[in-house]
């Protein structure tokens, strides 16, 4: 629909017309500001803690564990240079003293949600699965942060 609108505006004499073809669904999924009666009051993007520890695939696991513990966390998100989520070091991996690589220790492809989901809807998703936290990423997989269930309840 928006391409037709863009061309119609040109016929009306508007010279600088742009078409945001991805539309408002994509806008919301990147956590960008929205208004309206169905927009959740608080979203996963609002609740996400962006200071969750992160590490690279090739970092020494012992160093990562030390850094995670020192920061008072029990999890670490494995990212590439583009901040795309590759995996997650869970509580056991972050606490273990086994001699292995980040790549071996991580859980690959963790489940994620978009920043636009409301916190109520996110809680409904977490409770049946007994999940204590959820990763929030943009549609292209970049880390926004981590939402903890105990902070939503």
């Amino acid at each position, binding site marked *: *629909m928006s391409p037709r609108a863009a061309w119609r505006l040109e016929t009306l004499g508007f010279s600088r*017309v*742009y*078409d945001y073809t*991805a*539309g*408002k669904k994509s806008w919301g999924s990147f956590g960008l500001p929205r*208004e*309206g009666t169905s927009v959740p009051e608080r979203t996963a993007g609002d609740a996400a803690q962006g200071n969750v520890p992160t590490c690279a695939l090739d970092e020494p696991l012992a160093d990562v564990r030390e850094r995670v513990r020192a920061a008072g966390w029990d999890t670490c998100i494995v990212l590439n240079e583009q901040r795309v989520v590759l995996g997650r070091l869970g509580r056991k991996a972050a606490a273990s003293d086994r001699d292995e690589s980040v790549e071996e220790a991580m859980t690959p492809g963790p489940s994620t949600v978009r920043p636009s989901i409301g916190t109520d809807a996110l809680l409904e998703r977490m409770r049946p699965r007994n999940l204590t936290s959820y990763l929030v990423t943009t549609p292209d997989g970049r880390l926004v942060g981590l939402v903890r269930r105990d902070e939503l309840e």
Partner: protein
Amino acid sequence: MPQSIDHTEVRRLIAEEGAQPVEVLPAKEFSEEHIAGAINIPLKELGERAPLELERERPVIVYCNDYQ
């Protein structure tokens, strides 16, 4: 010729060039959810309302739900 742009360029055009985001879906869908700061001119009403409600000197960004 209208240019297709992504969300990064939408943000830049609004912030730096005072672009006018326009949702062309019906009013009900607009009231439920829209880009913050956008105005609503449904596609069928563009011919009548755009010349009255939009400034020709500023860029105009049209959008709907998605690429469909």
